[in-house]
């Protein structure tokens, strides 16, 4: 009796792991076929199956080199606007969450609902005004006296825009964390004589470090991956961000799949690395933010 249950259980377990493994194959297959293709020569990827590794005769690094050359400027530009936008939106989100969670006054809920609704806005509904706004607020002429900024007006616009659209989600992430803090701890700090700003600096901020990791990782991934805002806000090709460079690489290298795949991997590399090393935080951001 016990034996049959055990073997049934064993069979169930085998079935379970088989299903899990099949799903792993499914989820990784686009990446696998892409990475194999990226290491193949043109004849290699046309004549062999996409998931088969390259043979010595069809193996080449060329695609990677060429793709990197095409994307190099885009990568630099993406880093230039993604990092400030990520840091700013996380920092501001933390401040907003503190101001709306751990102080008491009427109307907080209203402000909060407005902010949270901002997470769900389809970007299309603000695209035309955004492009108008950034042509009226002309960063290039405003900063004509400072070339490094004037030359990167599109990136400045992107950084500011992404900061603004990132604040709702980071606010929600930090708020969930701040709500879980012990109220009486903050009251104790008040009784200890700490001002609202001091409480933030000495109590809240040190306790927010894990949440900062979550918010920064989540925002970095979101902002790095975006294409739409860049399409609309970047006018000067010298300011093209990496998702734009990759799109034009794909458009101009029709049929050169090895080059396209290598380019896709190079573009994804920063977010992939972040994901591999901080997957837990990313998952927490995904689950907590709800977007």
């Amino acid at each position, binding site marked *: 009796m016990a034996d049959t249950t055990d073997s049934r259980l064993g069979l169930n377990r085998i079935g379970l792991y088989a299903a899990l493994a099949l799903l792993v194959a499914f989820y*990784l297959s686009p*990446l696998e076929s892409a990475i194999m293709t990226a290491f193949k020569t043109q004849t290699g990827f046309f004549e062999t199956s996409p998931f088969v590794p390259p043979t010595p005769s069809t193996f080449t690094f060329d695609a990677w080199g060429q793709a990197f050359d095409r994307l190099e400027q885009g990568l630099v530009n993406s880093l230039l606007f993604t990092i400030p936008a990520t840091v700013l939106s996380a920092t501001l989100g933390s401040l907003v969450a503190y101001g709306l969670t751990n102080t008491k006054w009427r109307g907080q809920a209203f402000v909060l609902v407005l902010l949270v609704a901002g997470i769900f806005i389809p970007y299309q509904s603000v695209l035309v005004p955004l492009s108008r706004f950034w042509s009226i607020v002309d960063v290039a002429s405003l900063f004509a006296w400072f070339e490094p900024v004037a030359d990167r007006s599109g990136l400045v616009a992107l950084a500011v825009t992404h900061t*603004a659209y990132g604040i709702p989600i980071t606010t929600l992430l930090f708020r969930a964390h701040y709500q879980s803090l012990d109220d009486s701890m903050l009251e104790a700090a008040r009784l200890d004589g700490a001002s609202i700003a001091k409480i933030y600096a000495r109590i809240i901020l040190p306790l927010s470090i894990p949440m900062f990791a979550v918010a920064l990782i989540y925002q970095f991934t979101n902002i790095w991956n975006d294409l739409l805002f860049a399409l609309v806000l970047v006018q000067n090709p010298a300011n093209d961000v990496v998702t734009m460079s990759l799109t034009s690489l794909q458009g101009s290298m029709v049929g050169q799949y090895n080059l396209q795949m290598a380019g896709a991997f190079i573009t994804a590399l920063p*977010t992939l690395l972040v994901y591999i090393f901080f997957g837990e935080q990313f*998952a927490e951001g995904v689950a907590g933010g*709800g*977007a």
Partner: protein
Amino acid sequence: MRSRILRVLRPGEQADAESEQQVRTDGGTSADRPQRGAADSDARADGGVTATADQPSRARRWLDSEFVKSLPFWLPATLLVGLFVYGAIGWNFVISLTDWTGLRQPTYDSFDFEMYEVFFRNVGKGGLLSGPHTQEYWALRNTFVLLVVFTVAALVVGLLLAILVDRDIRYENTFRTIYLLPMSLSFVVTAIFWAWMYNPDTGMINETLRLVGLGSLTQQWISDPQFKLFAVMFALVWQFSGYAMVVYLAGLRAIPTDQYEAAKVDGASLVKMYWRVIIPQLRASTTSAAVVLMVFALKAFDFLFVLFGTRPGPSADILAMMMYRESFGITNWAYGSAIAMVLFVLALGVIAPYLYVQFKRGEL
């Protein structure tokens, strides 16, 4: 019952006759209330004067209030969001009421709903059932199909993943990480991957079909209008089912183990247990995951843009794409803005009830 104490008014503040008067109607059950005579109240008045000096003025009090002190924390960022989100939507609405086209500047002199009329007239132009249909019809229809089919499919796959991962397996973290991985990738990257996957000659999908002897099922996945939208949704499910999994896993973890054990004791089979005991409790997870997935679906622009450019054709066109094409492709700004408003209202229809319920439950 209530008695009021004497409050000494500050000079300059309007005198309130009643508060000058000390009303004492002591009574009730309080056992320890000292009796006070007139002399006592004089003494208190003196004490009150010293207290007055310490009392902050109304302005001072206001400056000291938590509201004012919290302003520096939330106001700047909230203004930024207000400007970029709500300001922009309002502006977009205004533009949608104009006739702005071409490369000239917009003029804000005459407003009407002409663009919306055009849009909805075109939606119904060919007759809703028979053809030939306009691009408006197709974009709206495909948007709805995407919204519903993609969302349901991603929820089902996500739930399945969550249940499998929740079965107390080894290397749970690794499995979870792999299933969620596509979500960390850009639409641009995944679109390029899937363009290659769907390649009719050497793509992974058709190759695999041939390999397992189903060569007859191979298709021109992303050029055949019959399969285009399906192919797109399949790839999107691949990318976002991990998200649904994460939400469902959190929901599953919140269910006490007792219930699994109770169901087992009651003799429920595994399938019955999930169907009748566990899944009904995941309603909240389903709602929040569905809302977010629908919003993803509305934002699927990037993916289609990389696969098809701005003209995916009637079978895969969506409102988000059409809006971009009208505005930034052929500079029909006002018309593009009107389509954007339709999209916004669609999104609002999904999120407003959700946020309202969350707000009512105090879960924001």
